[in-house]
């Protein structure tokens, strides 16, 4: 319940924050929304000697379409995504996802950047961003770079961010017409992490076949999983029930769930199959509209 002592630093710019990261190395942690970090500190599982609070840095919370991308600042709160008219009208997968992260109070503080940078496969945005084919924008001492989302999640709680880098933004390619997406999350109750969840984002061509598809899985492996075989099975095909069923089975096969308090491995695979099917159906409905 009571966190260990730390020194509190509150930089006003990103370069200041990066300098602090460099100075303190792995004794420091970035404090963004804090909704994952602070609970861990209260359990004394995380004991950073320095907390670098980036919440007062301006210019890194935004949701805007620009240059072919939906750009979201790393400090954007989940509640802002939930309330965004752009997200509501054009990015239903993202809206679905933001809505099921934790609960209303947590969403007021939790940030997209934190949700990704924490490297927790149980978080919801990783799979969604993979399905959307997003790019992570990382800012470090050497400047800004983009990291394809597929390369971002390295292993459990480890991302491709360097020690001196902060996740300052995420870029999602603006989907063309006839696109749709959906996120289906099975949780034991509101506020829980996913027992399993599936993110689907697709675009249909003029003939109604799948031109582009992203399928990714939450909390069924050490990292979020891009269900490549499932994707491959659908690309170029008309998504009839049989094709969807096959893709769902392939996604289930690609999952690497562990048995835990949320359920046994076999169940989670079964869920991946079922949720992939449901997410596909919903994504297609939305693509048609």
């Amino acid at each position, binding site marked *: 319940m009571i966190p260990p002592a730390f020194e509190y630093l509150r930089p006003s710019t990103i370069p200041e924050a990066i300098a602090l990261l460099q100075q303190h190395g792995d004794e420091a942690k970035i404090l963004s929304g804090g909704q994952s970090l602070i609970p861990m500190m209260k359990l004394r599982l995380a004991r950073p000697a320095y907390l670098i609070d980036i919440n007062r840095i301006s210019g890194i919370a935004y949701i805007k379409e620009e240059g072919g991308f939906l750009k979201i600042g790393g400090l954007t709160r989940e509640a802002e995504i939930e309330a965004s008219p752009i997200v509501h009208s054009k990015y239903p997968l993202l809206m679905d996802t933001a809505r099921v992260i934790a609960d*209303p109070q947590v969403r007021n503080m939790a940030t997209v950047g934190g949700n990704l940078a924490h490297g927790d496969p149980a978080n919801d945005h990783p799979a969604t961003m993979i399905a959307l084919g997003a790019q992570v924008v990382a800012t470090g001492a050497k400047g800004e770079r983009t990291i394809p989302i597929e390369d971002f999640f390295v292993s459990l709680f480890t991302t491709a961010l360097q020690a001196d880098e902060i996740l300052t933004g995420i870029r999602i390619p603006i989907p063309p017409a006839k696109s749709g997406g959906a996120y289906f999350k099975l949780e034991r109750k509101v506020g829980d992490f996913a027992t399993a969840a599936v993110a689907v984002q697709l675009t249909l061509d003029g003939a109604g076949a799948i031109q582009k598809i992203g399928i990714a899985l939450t909390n069924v492996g050490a990292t979020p999983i891009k269900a490549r075989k499932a994707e491959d099975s659908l690309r170029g095909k008309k998504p009839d029930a049989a094709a969807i069923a096959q893709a769902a089975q392939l996604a289930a096969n690609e999952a690497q769930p562990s048995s835990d308090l949320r359920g046994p491995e076999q169940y989670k695979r079964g869920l991946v199959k079922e949720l992939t099917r449901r997410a596909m159906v919903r994504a297609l409905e939305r693509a048609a509209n």
Partner: protein
Amino acid sequence: MANKQLVKVTINGRHREAAVEPRLLLVHFIRESLALTGTHVGCDTSNCGACTVILNGKTVKSCTMFAVQADGGDITTVEGLIKDGGQLHPLQEGFRQEHGLQCGFCTPGMLMSSLVLLRKNPNPSEEDIRWGISGNLCRCTGYQNIVKAVQYAAKKMSEAKTQGGSNA
């Protein structure tokens, strides 16, 4: 003892400040440094919402923030609901009229979440209300009368609006 930092807030309309360790949780700052014990602690894993307060217009779990993060902020707690002159807020009335509380421990957090819910959505459906308070646990009421309490308040507040009165 670790370095202390001065935290200044406006809380329920009053300016307050105290020098605190950075690790002091906002809920302890409110309850102990500022002696406002209406906000409660019900768990240690940020699940129960009993500690919910309004910070800069948004509900937050005050057990999952450090007081230093709230520096310069504007906080409302349950103690701030009552109007000058002692008139109950429609939400407080609603909770009483509809029996939306039993032991009272979750009630402050519920009131805060409900207040912000009604500010954003003055005419919520039952489903909206249940989602709106989904970050607040109650062990006594089964939520049914809490939903009714919020509906009572929504009605009262919209009536007051049409009559040109003020609502919080």
